[in-house]
């Protein structure tokens, strides 16, 4: 099997349903189609270069950011606006079709993930896979996330950099 699409932690494999392999191109297609996308960003983005990537991707696609764990602080300190939620908290809200959204704009239809701890993100993605049919999930970490609807493959840093950079054009 193609190593790139084996879950990064291989035992995360959960059943027949596996994420589609996303390229920057398909990821951008998903973003274009989305009406109300959301960007959930975890603690790996507390540091560079991921922080800047996140910032720029959010800007170009006009994505509201939710930071998980204590990522908020680094973002705040660096002038990047975000709302802070626990990753399980935001997953919990995302699965409720009636949820009013972080700014009262209503439930999202696409959620991008990056930078969360792999296994807890997998669990959150599993929640959304099972209980949030109203939205799609996409992960742009350098780790293949089989519980997402679509995920970047497992990559080395260099390739990932390229992928992320490509995300910065519409």
């Amino acid at each position, binding site marked *: 099997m193609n190593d790139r699409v084996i879950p990064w932690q*291989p035992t995360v494999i959960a059943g027949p349903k596996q994420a589609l392999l996303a390229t920057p191109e398909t990821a951008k297609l998903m973003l274009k189609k989305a009406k109300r996308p959301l960007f959930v960003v975890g603690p790996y983005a507390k540091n560079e270069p991921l922080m800047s990537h996140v910032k720029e991707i959010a800007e170009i696609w006009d994505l509201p950011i939710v930071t998980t764990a204590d990522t908020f602080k680094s973002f705040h300190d660096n002038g990047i606006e975000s709302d802070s939620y626990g990753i399980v908290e935001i997953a919990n809200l995302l699965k409720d079709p009636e949820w009013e959204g972080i700014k009262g704009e209503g439930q999202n239809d696409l959620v991008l993930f990056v930078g969360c701890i792999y296994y807890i993100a997998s669990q959150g993605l599993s929640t959304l896979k099972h209980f949030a049919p109203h939205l799609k999930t996409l992960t742009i970490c350098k780790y293949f996330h089989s519980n997402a609807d679509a995920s970047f493959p497992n990559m080395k840093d260099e390739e990932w950099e390229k992928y992320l950079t490509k995300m910065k054009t519409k």
Partner: protein
Amino acid sequence: MNIKINNIIKTNNEVGDNLTPNSIKPKDFKVDFWKSKNIEFSFGEIIEDNSPDSRDEETFMGPTPKPSGTDLRSWDMKLLERYPPFYAPFCDMCCLCTFGKCDLTGKKGACGIDIKAQQGRFALLTCCIGAAAHSAHSRHLLEYLIHKCGSDHPVDFGNNIDIEAPIMRTLIGKAPKTLGDIRESMDYIEEENLHLLSTCHTGQEGNHLDFESKAFHAGLMDHIGMEIGDVSQIAALDLPKGEANTPLVELGIGAIDHDKPVILCIGHNIAPGVGIVDYLEDNDFEDEIELCGICCTSIDITRYSDRAKVVGPISKQLKFLKSGVADVVVVDEQCIRSDVLEEAQKKGAALIATTDKMCLGLDDRTNDPVDAIVADIISKKDDGALILDPEKVGEVATKLSLSLSKSRKSLKSLPDMDKIQEDAFKCTECEWCVRVCPNSIPIMDAVSSAGKGDFESTEKLYDHDICYTCGRCEQECPENIKIMDLMAKIGENNLKKEKFNIRVGRGPIQDVEVRRVGAPLVLGDIPGIVAFVGCSNYPDGADDVAKMAEEFLERNYIVVTSGCGAMSIGEYKNEEGKTLYERFSGDFDARGLINVGSCVSNSHIPGVAIKVANIFAKKPLEGNFEVIADYIFNRIGACGVAWGAYSQKAAAIASGVNRWGIPVILGPHGSKYRRLYLGRSDKEETWNLTDMRTGKLIKGEPAPEHLLYAAESREEATVNIAKNCIRPTDNNKGRQIKLNHYIDLHKKYFGTIPEDVYRYIRNEKDIPITYKNDVKEILERNDWEPRELVMEPTILDFPRDE
């Protein structure tokens, strides 16, 4: 021979067939049954029983003594309404029966189950297994202790403790006066556990909330099980009975004297440890032989003899086994590596299995003479033995250690550094070790630098168990690099650093302490009780737990701990080289750091909350679970933290704690329990309360906000702990204090004042002075309106129109 039946058999004229009080009747289990006069029977030679006897007190019996699951279902449903289960399936499939596997992704299984109910079922199964582990341990212990001390051995913790067993008192409806009395509680939980486990069978319960209600019940049964275990061993073995200032004992790999014969106990059941201690003492071997332990059994042995030492928590197991220091490994039950025999063999250590829970395929030598057993092991005829008699274990282990320590000298250390480096040099940087590592820690870098002679990164992973030596990387490594030997070697090289201490587990909290802290706790002057419990499945090392403990100790919280958590806390030193146990007293009071003891001692944590309700608030306990839980839930700012919870036991404990109305915060691995209980602070109507004084419905706050939460980082957890100590009964001053800490910590870790602070401010007097202006801004931004303070909050249906 004196014989006495200490089971008090109660009966009632109306229900003549209700002769097994531990068996819940389908319908006759009525209050009046329990209110009736007791009848006591004795047989054989009767001994005068001079202990205070509850029969003489006219206790009011509440509605639910020995409740069945359905008896407390309405309480559960109230909790579940506030905190609906959040499911994160770990597997999309079910493989429980041979109709399967069934894919439950948006589909029902062949039995009709859906993914929600399946997750609930799994939670129940997990809690049943966890509860069984504690309870079977307790049954074993109880019978062993009765065998040792007699069934009429009193359960009496002295004058400082009247309520020896608050959980049993509440749930069984009476307190045990003797070891023999405890059997009644044991019978009850065995029966309940069976009913609960039964529900996991294919084709039983179909509703996820009902599964959760049953998981709560399993958790509650677990609490009884734990209390039975600890109460029995405290009473029978004269372990500390709640004294605050128990001694400090040595902790850490570096604390073990490698030159002496070393007996290592691993597990949870004190019985073989007692056998060893007794034998060492009776034969004056205490100075000659090093007795140490890993996991809870080590904590309990030090409660029995403070000459024993604690190697450390579960995360030290493979490290220490690989080090070869132990001459004899005595395993009892729970949290023992399944490959312990193999690892002992590799190091030429003898292994003794001591309980039915772990027999390891060894010959049962229980009835063989000691010398024959010893000879067979020394001669390598056998790798070890199964010995179900704790006293014999003591003798065999001692004799083996004396003999083996001589022949094993060469096995007591690891290969030389250059051999280790040579091995590590084979690393191809394939990265598979990192991928299979539960925490994806940078073990590849550590190995590959080690291959180049640089051991610093390995050392970083060794310290504070960032690598908890689960061994998965080594298992996966295509080059067969002995990564665990590398890790153990680092420990060997740094023995001096690996020396700490831990306060001996004190057991319960004393009544007088409860009286002292009752008011400040309920009103908020003491901002909360934070309990660090559970295992070492930490996302980023053991330090995090100690840092959290330190943070809350310094902020005047009461910090309680047990088991591996208590050990992790002991493994942390400040710049002056002092551990938290040296810096903070063991008093149950603000800034107290209380090690209650082992896993089973966790029962004292809900126990103290129950005691607050009883001693401070005069709530009768017997048969009054709902009232007590409601009291705790609304008033006692306690928060459990199981940062490294991995086990089914931890899941059961948490579910029980939750049912008592106490929130629990887990580490990120807790998400793999598949189920949390999350509140929705955005749904205001969820938080309504009734004021018992007036019967009025009152707006409440999300306090606690979540009942079972998994945090992704220590920082997130810390802030959440502070927030989850807020309770409706805080008075203005108390609320200020609590909010102050919450805001402080949020500022520290998130850089801002938390926006949701407005939810917790009832009127301006709740606003912490320091943050007045900022908070007022937030209030305005959120259209805040002052609201009424609740006097006697309840979420029960009260007053109720029938």
